[in-house]
């Protein structure tokens, strides 16, 4: 029995290897991706590091407040990203930076290919990706008398010479529970 289990374990590892291999091949990736949508623990990795668009620009979340008189404040960075020195390798916030990229890709993959801001579909506003950003942004301290908050997702050139950021998404104003 142990011998059979040994063979079975080896066969399962072999099958898993084949599935991962097929995930890397453009012709078979589509079929595998149908399963990957439900792969929440990352059993089928994509090994194409730094060959696509992920990581080639910075994605930042900005927010601004509006008070009862309708006065709108300045845009602020929701989460400052980046390293300053080569030795800055300790990075708990790196997961948030990666989350920004993932959230943007899942929220609105079309914006990554098209210019300009589109009206947000209801499905997007009700998605957990959108709510996750809204929930985080709503907890940040902002204008003292703010009653509403809006956020935007922008793509910037990072450390390159400053250029106009691409606006990927601008949310409507959302009511704050109790002035931030």
């Amino acid at each position, binding site marked *: 029995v*142990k*011998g059979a*289990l*040994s*063979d079975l*374990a*080896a066969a399962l*590892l*072999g099958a*898993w*290897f084949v599935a*991962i291999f097929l995930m*890397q091949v453009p012709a078979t990736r589509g079929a595998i991706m149908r399963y990957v949508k439900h792969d*929440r*623990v*990352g*059993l089928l*990795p994509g*090994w*194409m*590091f*730094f*060959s*696509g668009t992920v*990581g*080639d*620009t*910075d994605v930042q979340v900005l927010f601004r407040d509006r008070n009862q008189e309708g006065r709108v404040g300045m845009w602020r960075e929701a989460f400052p*990203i*980046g*390293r*300053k020195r*080569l*030795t*800055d*390798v*300790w*990075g*708990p*916030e*790196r*997961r*948030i*930076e*990666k*989350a920004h*990229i*993932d*959230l943007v890709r*899942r929220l609105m993959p079309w914006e990554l290919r098209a210019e300009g801001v589109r009206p947000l579909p209801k499905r997007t506003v009700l998605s*957990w990706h959108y*709510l*996750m950003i809204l*929930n*985080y942004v709503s907890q940040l301290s902002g204008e003292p008398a703010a009653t509403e908050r809006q956020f935007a997702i922008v793509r*910037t*050139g*990072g*450390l*390159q010479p400053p250029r106009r950021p691409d606006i990927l998404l601008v949310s409507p104003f959302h009511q704050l529970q109790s002035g931030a």
Partner: protein
Amino acid sequence: MKLETGIRYGALIASAGLTWSALELLTARNLLLSRFFDWRVIRYSYPPRLRRMLAPLGRPGFSLVLVLYPVAGVAFPFALLQSRLLAAGFAALVLVGHFSAQLRFGIARDGADQMQTILWVGFLVYALDLGRTSNVAAAVFVVSQLILAYVIAGTSKIASARWRDGSALAVYMGGRAFSTPAISRLFQRRHVSAVVGVRVMAWETLGALVLLGGRTGVITFLAMGAAFHVGIAFTLGLVTFMFAFLAAYPVVYALLG
């Protein structure tokens, strides 16, 4: 080096990566667990039935999981000296904790997390000691994934126009997310971006061929790979990748060296 020794050293390096990752999360748990990755929102990414099953991930005690599974990882190589079954138990604990963390965050999984899964499944199958076939298959699986990761990363870069024209690293190093101002300035020099880019593509695509050169080839491969990952850890700040990929190196040496 015996296969078991390779697995033990590999597990130690992998555990260092898990510990690093867990400490990062724990030191910023208020920001990460309570504010950004707020379970009250993330749970809605799961269907209702699964949501109920995963409810414990949202409890404050979840931080304990982040402490326990790297500890199980560190215990694995020592347990392997005493009892394969005990070691298998620790490897299973690591996988349960690792998968729980992935489910808890919902997104932001990276290649280091995925390589850790590959490693610990391999270590688990080896520790179960079902027979020689599965023991060797576990090591072959880990090593083949390592090589596949390099070859795919390399060939997909070759297929990319910006990597071929030498501008890719200037672009990636120009972002604030990975780079630093000094590194960014360095890679804005066209020849630096192009020369380093060609070397990265060559190493990733063809580096594994060095393994055909016997023991010397294996040592050369491991030395080049170690330099590559340490370089990435500092230039891109991807320390967890360094641990996850270097953890497969002792297994490579044990299997092929």
